[in-house]
């Protein structure tokens, strides 16, 4: 019998791996994605499927270029998390090239130029998002109207939109925050009266529930001890404090 010589600790937390962490993050996006799909149609789902496939291809290519083993890291789901986060942030029914550019930038510039998994100073998905936002502002702000105002597209429409972007200009609408910016002259109260998009039970129609669903996913992750509350609460509190400090009875600058 040859004895294994390894350092302590000899035991490890069961089912704890990078793969597991990434899987849990993906699971936590499900409620939000489902609510998004309910209000805005299957565009987000199509985005995610298309984006994930592209991301896996980019990841494999980048690993191959770097002379790394490209089979094992693909299984850690990290690049699927990146793709999912980016695709959730993109407008549903985004054209294929927008997603491709975003994923390419995320995986290659956001992740691999810094050394791959764990070495990225910024969230790769957000690097991709920022690049898209400054490069293609029109496509990035073309959201469809939520269920209850507009007609929600079907799955065929979603694929059509993916590869023939121009056909869906008609149903695009501004997001609630865009509405505030476009109507900077109106007070908060008047604007929510005037615009159906802002007349949700809590906030913007559809959007309030989308955000609550993502919050639910976040709370589940918190309970799974995947992250701790300090960073998100700190960021939201900072936003709230700054917004509150500019409160002027409901003008545009009060909330932006």
């Amino acid at each position: 019998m040859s004895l294994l010589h390894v350092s302590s600790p000899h035991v490890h937390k069961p089912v704890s791996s990078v793969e597991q962490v990434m899987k849990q993050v993906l699971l936590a996006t499900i409620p939000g994605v489902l609510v998004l799909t309910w209000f805005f149609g299957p565009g987000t789902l199509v985005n995610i499927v298309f984006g994930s496939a592209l991301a896996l291809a980019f990841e494999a290519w980048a690993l191959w270029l770097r002379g790394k083993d490209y089979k094992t890291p693909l299984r850690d789901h990290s690049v699927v998390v990146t793709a999912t986060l980016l695709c959730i942030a993109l407008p549903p029914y985004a054209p294929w090239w927008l997603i491709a550019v975003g994923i390419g930038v995320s995986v290659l510039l956001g992740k691999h130029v810094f050394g791959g998994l764990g070495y990225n100073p910024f969230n790769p998905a957000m690097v991709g998002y920022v690049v898209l936002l400054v490069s293609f502002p029109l496509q990035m702000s073309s959201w469809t109207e939520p269920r209850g105002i507009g007609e929600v597209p079907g799955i065929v429409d979603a694929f059509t939109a993916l590869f023939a972007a121009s056909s869906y200009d008609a149903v695009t609408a501004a997001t609630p925050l865009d509405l505030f910016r476009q109507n900077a002259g109106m007070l908060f109260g008047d604007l929510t009266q005037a615009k159906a998009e802002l007349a949700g039970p809590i906030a913007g129609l559809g959007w309030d529930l989308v955000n609550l669903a993502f919050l639910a996913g976040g709370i589940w992750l918190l309970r799974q001890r995947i992250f701790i509350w300090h960073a998100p609460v700190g960021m939201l509190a900072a936003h709230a404090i700054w917004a509150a400090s500019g409160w002027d009875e409901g003008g545009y600058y009060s909330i932006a």
Partner: protein
Amino acid sequence: MRQIFDIHGGIHPSERKDMSNPGWISDCGMPSKLVLPVTQHIGAPARPIVEVGDTVLGGQTIAEAQGPVSVPVHAPSSGTVTAIEARAVPHASGLTDICIEISLDGNDEWVSCQGLDNWRDETKAVLLDRVRLAGIAGLGGAGFPTAIKLASDRDGGIHTLIINGTECEPYITADDTVMQCFAHQIIEGAEILAHMVGAETVLLAVEDNKPEAAEAMRHAAEALDSAEVVTFPTKYPSGGEKQLIEILLNAQVPSGGIPADIGVLCQNPSTAIAVRDALIDGKPVTHRVTTVTGMSLKDPGNRRVMLGTPIKELLDTAGFNAESADRVIHGGPMMGFAVTDLDMPVVKITNCVLAPTRSEIPPPQPQQACIRCGMCAEACPASLLPQQLYWYARAKDQDQLERHNLMDCIECGACAYVCPSHIPLVQYYRSAKGSLREAAKEKVRSDNSRTRFEARQERLEREAAAREAKRAARKAAAEARAKAGDDLVQAAIERAKAKKAQQEAEQ
């Protein structure tokens, strides 16, 4: 009820303590031979005082302490010394040590042991000497010489003695068993220890996963007014000295300090018994209770085992199946180290020998990249930043490692336990600590040699200056003499001239 406090971090690994049937002890029996390392403690090795061929009796000192931080080694039974040589010993780095091998005669004859009639009447110095000569070193696993710990005499003294029966490592039930079976002896030992250091309070700390042990201790503690049994929730590593003090007293041992700095002394239950046995019965440390466990054993349990018993023989008493085990661990699964050679002996710090099967404790998974999830920082009971320490250890950035208090790491392994990337963090820290210690030693060495060099330089300059001064003095003297000499010559010439002139005048 005493209020208890929580520590930062900690983990809840699977305990698997039932496997070794806590509360029952069986005797390991007489092994064929004993191998007794001269260093079973932290400090200077003991010096063998027997020779090959000598017959020894149980309880006889076979190696004596060298220097203050050292303890002697005693023969656990009678027999003949058959070898004194370097052998593999239980050590995290797999080192060898001088070992005294005794072939036992089976008669188990002992020297006569003389205890103190009334230890209360003796001075602290006498008691300390007894503790030291009995070879007592922390039996919980650290092995620090107990007499040194008891002697440390800081300002303010010791107010609280903690008997640390936490035993938070998974699998191990040696302390649990000792507390259940020898509660009265523990209390007697605690009374002696408290008397020696002047502690007014004795806290008997037991994790709440050992209700039988807590009950036995509570019962025994009725005999000692200052003693109180405290139970607290099970969490690893509550048994770490600094963690336990925080749980019981809500006080932190300062970074780089020891519990005595805040007036606390911690001792293991078995150490308390050893102190009691040394003073009341006059018996040295020659046996200990060790947990032998793991799924590679048919009959795991707690054994009373002679120090020096080869681990292989101990495992065999428990029905060891060598085929199913691919590692044997000295100590527990969190902090123990893999045994490299089964001929290694059981020593004073051997609280557990763990022989798991491959499926029970699988081989380590390959290390992946750190994803900065921060779970390690959540788990660290010392409130360190394991992730930063990991990066600095990899970068060999010693300044940052010191600034992030690497030396306060207790190597409990909680960070590596939770790491989803399976990074062997403790291994990085151990190695980095070694380099820091090495660097500190190197600094002392270079400081010393700089001081020496500067002193030498100064001495050389001084000597040169002295020589110069002497030379100058000599020169001045010579010049003075030369001048004086010139004058004489001149005078002689003058005289000769005068004489000549006179002679000429006479002619």
